[in-house]
């Protein structure tokens, strides 16, 4: 059991290191609900100039990202912005 854990799982020191990086990124940017709402509003202001989106459907937060597609991940800030209607405003 223990041996299988060793083979299949990462070393716990490495897990701790990566968890901390994400945690501190979130702590440092002061990711309070108010802060996230402010970012959401700003994203909406910008993106809604180009696409039809719903401000209530935007999701933001901190997550892991695998920049080179490799096993190493980094803390990342993500925003999920569903497009309501694909009619482009302004451009094209």
């Amino acid at each position, binding site marked *: 059991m223990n041996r299988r854990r060793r083979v299949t799982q990462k*070393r*716990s*020191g*490495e897990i*701790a*290191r990566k*968890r*901390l*990086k994400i*945690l*501190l990124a979130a*702590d*440092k940017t002061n990711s309070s609900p108010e802060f996230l709402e402010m970012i959401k509003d700003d994203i909406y202001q910008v993106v809604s100039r180009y696409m039809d989106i719903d401000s209530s459907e935007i999701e933001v937060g901190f997550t892991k990202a695998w920049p080179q597609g490799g096993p190493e991940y980094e803390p990342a800030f993500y925003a999920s912005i569903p497009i309501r209607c694909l009619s482009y405003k302004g451009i094209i």
Partner: protein
Amino acid sequence: MSEVIVITSGKGGVGKTTTSANIGTGLAMLGMRTALIDTDIGLRNLDVVMGLENRIVYNLVDVVEGNCRMKQALIRDKRYPNLYLLPSAQTRDKSAVNPEQMIKLTEDLKDDFDYILLDCPAGIEQGFRNAIAGADRALVVTTPEVSAIRDADRIIGLLETGDMGQIQLIVNRVRTDMVRRGDMMSVDDVMDILAVPLLGAVPDDESIVISTNQGEPLAGTDTPAGQAYMDICKRLLGEDIPLSIPEAGRGFISRLTGFLKRA
């Protein structure tokens, strides 16, 4: 030129008091006139770790409130001629003292001491504010654990916004055997995450428990932690001591050699 150093961590239980006691003892052994101040009002502990709990008459709050003179409250450690302890009050709370009073207290001590070490309480509230108020330099103690490092990061942020002159890191309770097999963050990992210069790393050493049981700090003794604390003290004095972690053996061989040494 005397220096006021606060020993802080954010999280409780990472070894602030043990670190304060041992750095204080080490500096005194190296000939520095050293005052240890327990700023944890209401939860007095440094006296016990130093083994001086039976000699308390007056305390920090008495000095601040003018119930006694500083000289009456300072306990001289008879084992080390340069070492004094100003104990905390046990029956009062953090609000008994304010940052301005702490600044005055440390200023007053500067005339008589080379080093004034402040053992900071856990947390980021008034006790922390009091302890850092008069300090020129901060030593942030952490252990290689997620929770302790997160709190250390918060404390470092607060110290930086509070314009603390110099901030250095002490990584406590390192288990080289666990780091080697990948089950503990290394000192380099911790430094990399916190981005603060390292003053030293202290191994997780059972002699610390024994020393605390006895009320005798182990700085300078022939133990892995005792050596690590002495190295830290020498670095504080500006000596160029390489950053290595004295290893506290836990394997069979080291236990065997330890046994043979004792026998």
